[in-house]
């Protein structure tokens, strides 16, 4: 007959410690590391839009960001943005400037693409189509989720780079050309990689694709 061996108190402590360690490892490696876990991916096919011809689907690591463009406010800027989308120019472009909770910027087609990333020049690249004039006359409120064309310190230098704001920015009104607003999926942008207190992101996240809905 085999005698049952009772687990000692110290063995119980070690076992509990190992279980806790296992759970902690699982949570930190699988659940916490997956920043997309609780992000809803919006499927544009399941949504009805009022102006489908002005709807843009930006696909990033954690899902779709759906943007509505406003050609009535900034006709030239929207035209440029649509043109670059149709050329698939924004695909694989880096989110090169990300300020935590404030702003996310992308669209450097010269130095900010996955295949030819140049950290030294990132943010200064152009599209090759030339600059366009700032369109600041229209009424537009720069609320959270607003999309605008980036420019240099001077007006009328908009090209391909665009930004999306993650908080209200009333001072942007009349300063930057608005092109649209995020209508679904702003939470996807809040997961984009940033480095606290730094403005250029080393090894940045990328836009997978940007397409027009129609």
């Amino acid at each position, binding site marked *: 007959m085999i005698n049952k061996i009772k687990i000692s108190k110290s063995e119980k402590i070690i076992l509990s410690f190992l279980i806790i360690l296992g759970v902690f490892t699982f949570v930190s490696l699988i659940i916490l590391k997956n920043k997309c876990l609780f992000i809803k991916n919006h499927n544009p096919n399941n949504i009805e839009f009022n102006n489908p011809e002005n709807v843009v689907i930006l696909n990033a690591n954690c899902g779709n960001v759906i943007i509505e463009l406003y050609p009535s406010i900034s006709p030239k800027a929207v035209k440029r943005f649509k043109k670059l989308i149709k050329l698939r120019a924004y695909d694989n472009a880096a989110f090169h400037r990300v*300020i935590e909770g*404030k702003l996310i910027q992308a669209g450097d087609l010269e130095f900010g693409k996955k295949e030819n990333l140049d*950290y*030294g020049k990132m943010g200064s690249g152009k599209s090759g189509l030339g600059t366009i004039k700032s369109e600041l006359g229209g009424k537009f409120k720069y609320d959270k989720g607003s999309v605008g064309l980036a420019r240099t*310190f001077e007006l009328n230098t908009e090209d391909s780079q665009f930004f999306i704001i993650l908080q209200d*920015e*009333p*001072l*942007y009104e*009349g*300063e930057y050309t608005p092109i649209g607003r995020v209508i679904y999926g702003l939470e996807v942008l809040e997961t984009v990689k940033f*480095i606290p*207190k*730094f*403005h*250029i992101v*080393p090894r940045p996240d990328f836009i997978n694709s940007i397409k027009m809905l129609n």
Partner: protein
Amino acid sequence: MILFRAILLFLIFITPLKANTIYNLIKIPNLEIYKIDTKNGLRYLYATKPFRLGVNVKKNISCYNSNKQTLGKKYKIIKKNLDRYSLSFLKKINLKYIVLCENLSISEINTAGIPNNITRTLILDIKFNKRHFERAIHHELFHMVNDSYKELFNENTWKNFNKKSFEYSQCSTCNDNWNLDLLDNSSDFFSEYAKSTASEDMAEVFSHLLFYQNKIKNESSIIKKKILFIKKNILKIDDTFKF
């Protein structure tokens, strides 16, 4: 070369972020919004801490933050005076941001204001000389006009209005006499300070016109020519402008 690139990249990545929206727009640190939804589109900002500015390492412009009470009192006066300018006029002269701070100085010399038509900003010293404070607002605003329309406010044309024997100083701070008090009715200048440079003289004429409106009693024919010149050219910029 590899080492150089590595150092360059390191410097880029360690550049601390100045995420402040106002800094990104007008390149002045330590500011916050005071009032932005104004009728003529002017955006009033105030210094929360002292700041220094300058083109190179020697940041020769400095200004200090003020207390809320002074700020509130002076804001009312500044707004009352700047409300006289329309949105379209301010757009034409590239003025959008008014920075309120105190003890403004450039190279350690106190000044009422510092205009910059590239950043569309006018920094105003809210503790500037009480007696001339309101008029100084218009004086500084004229420098924005002048900087945007140098061809209209031609200094050589202006100099010809003066007596042949008269010469301006080399610069606005070269003279020791910075008195802003009104000179007597027969003088060819509104103040001693107006004698410093042609551009300061123009700003003095403009500010007296705006501040005293139709109460100017000066009878000098030179002053009359100067007033006509300023009025004519301001109306060229905006024909709806009211003096």
